[in-house]
């Protein structure tokens, strides 16, 4: 029934700019991923007591139920995918839902989101945030790298000291220098 309500929109998408044509997308890995996650939770539940003396259920039961539910739902999803379930990307301001993905832009943004993992503990918040800002700007089509870094640096420094004043600790300015 949900398919019914979606039909007009997806038909329209096919008609317009995207050209995501004939072959239905079959993202098997989605269902597999959900099942895998359920399996991890089930595995985590094994070492926990399922029952308790007084409360009848122990700390493990909820985890087991969630793991089971994820496995079953993942199975449902695979079944739907096998039957040609449609996955229309969500509408968003600024985004063309039907358009093919621009992988360069996407990966640039991924690097921006992942960069803190590498540099936050050594280079600190202001530097990391400035670089991430410039990377996101680049992913969104800006080609003025130097200007982007300067704007990012100003924003990061203002955010760093502004939030520090409000009592939010964002670590040392440049941790590697203060060690």
């Amino acid at each position: 029934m949900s398919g019914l309500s979606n039909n007009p929109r997806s038909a329209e998408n096919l008609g317009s700019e995207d050209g995501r044509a004939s072959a239905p997308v079959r993202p098997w890995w989605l269902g597999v991923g959900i099942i895998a996650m359920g399996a991890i939770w089930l595995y985590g539940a094994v070492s926990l007591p399922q029952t308790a003396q007084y409360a009848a259920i122990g700390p493990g039961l909820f985890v087991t139920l969630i793991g089971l539910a994820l496995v079953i739902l993942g199975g449902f999803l695979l079944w739907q995918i096998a039957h040609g379930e449609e996955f229309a990307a969500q509408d968003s301001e600024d985004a063309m839902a039907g358009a093919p993905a621009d992988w360069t832009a996407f990966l640039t943004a991924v690097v921006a989101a992942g960069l803190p993992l590498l540099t936050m503990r050594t280079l600190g918040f202001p530097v990391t945030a400035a670089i991430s800002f410039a990377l996101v700007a680049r992913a969104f089509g800006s080609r003025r790298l130097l200007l982007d870094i300067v704007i990012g640096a100003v924003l990061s420094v203002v955010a760093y000291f502004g939030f520090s004043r409000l009592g939010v600790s964002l670590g040392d300015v440049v941790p590697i220098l203060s060690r």
Partner: protein
Amino acid sequence: MDALGSLLHGFSIALQPINLFWAFIGSALGTAVGVLPGIGPALTIALLLPVTTQIAPTSAFIMFAGILYGAMYGGSTTSILLNTPGESGSMMTALEGNKMARAGRGAAALACAAIGSFVAGTIATLALTFAAPAIAEIAFIFGPEDYFALMVLSFTCVAVVMGSSRVRGFIALFLGLALGVIGIDGTTGQARLTFGSPELLDGIELTIVLVSLFAVGETLYVASRFRNAPAQINPLSGGVWMTREDWRRSFKPWLRGTAIGFPIGALPAGGSEIPTFLSYAVERRLSKRPEEFGHGAIEGVAGPEAANNAAAAGILVPLLTLGLPTSATSAVLLAAFQNYGLQPGPFLFVSNGDLVWALIASLYVGNVMLLILNLPLVGLWVRLLLIPRPYLYGGILVFAMVGVWGLSTSWIDLLCMFLVGLAGYVMRVYDFPIAPVLIGLILGPMAEKQLRQALAIGQGDPLTLVSSPLAASLLALAVLAMLLPVLMSRLKRAAEDEPAGNPETAA
């Protein structure tokens, strides 16, 4: 304690200059994020949570309430002028409102939406004033099994109502529940699914998941499918203001929209999608000029916009009286209460009456402020859209980092941000709803606690769960809720199909 006296006392707190200041900040910030793409009320409140250490709880919640209401006003502005409904609640407003704007009646549509929001917000707040204490009174006698049943109902409704597929709705819900069990079990003190990481013992904060799903996920998603259109602001906002005829045609839809929006918003199912669809369908049926629908009927702006705002006030009823969040924004509001060591629910009205009533009084104040901020200044707000997108989304990521890193400067938090952000991207591409994740995450541990308490009291007998008539009927409703999508798709089709073919193509 009578509601009126308490409310007057609330006003005496909300009208203090410092609280008026926070209400103003909240309203302005809310309108801004309502207008801006990529950032909404839930994300804004989540990013401001760390600041709560510096502000008194009353002031903080007055600000948050301003953000909640303000985002509704801002959202209707962009739907009317640019046909970009920021959230599902303003989809119907965009339908007729944008047509009006294209026909040179943008100013009338904007005024109708703003005044409708004001009327609905005020009436709904009035309803909240009298309904909330009454419900809180009833909630005193709720046992753990009743709460558990209520939460199960909330889970199924949220999973079923939000998004387009029940399977994906439930997957989203269970992802949230799964993240919710990570950390130390509150009852036995055993570590669950921490994968040997001491940082995970405290569990995963709602803020991290919310910020990652909304800010990081949205940034990745929009980056990959960026519509690089040059910023164009309102060629459409001009035209005549509301005529006497417009007033006459809008007045009843405002009231009907409020009557539809508030009760549905107050249900555990919550959300603003159903009431706006419903209001739109009702207005088209009752209109003397049904042929105008799809071509800019002012009733189609007035009704849904009122319903949207009334529903926003409605979600505060279960949140304040039962501690039950029914939307992403109310989930983060619940987290804010917990930050202050407060647990919303019947006892909140007793233990923190000042806070609750100041919050409710501030909703009246905020509505007046928002009307003043939005009616004459709408041109100013729309200018926010001129911010170049590369800088807007860059800034969103920087603030996301502040929100996540500022929590406890933990590397594991950054890892969570990265992974959950990627998940947020995938969920957008494959159309999984986001809100159920957050509801599951924050409500899951509470539901588990109630379940274990109920069973402990019942000495392990599972029949305890249906032992009270209330719990039994709530669980029955939860099963019935599975049928909601049928109703929803009917409503949707009724609302979308009939007026002049398919109005969505106009985008």
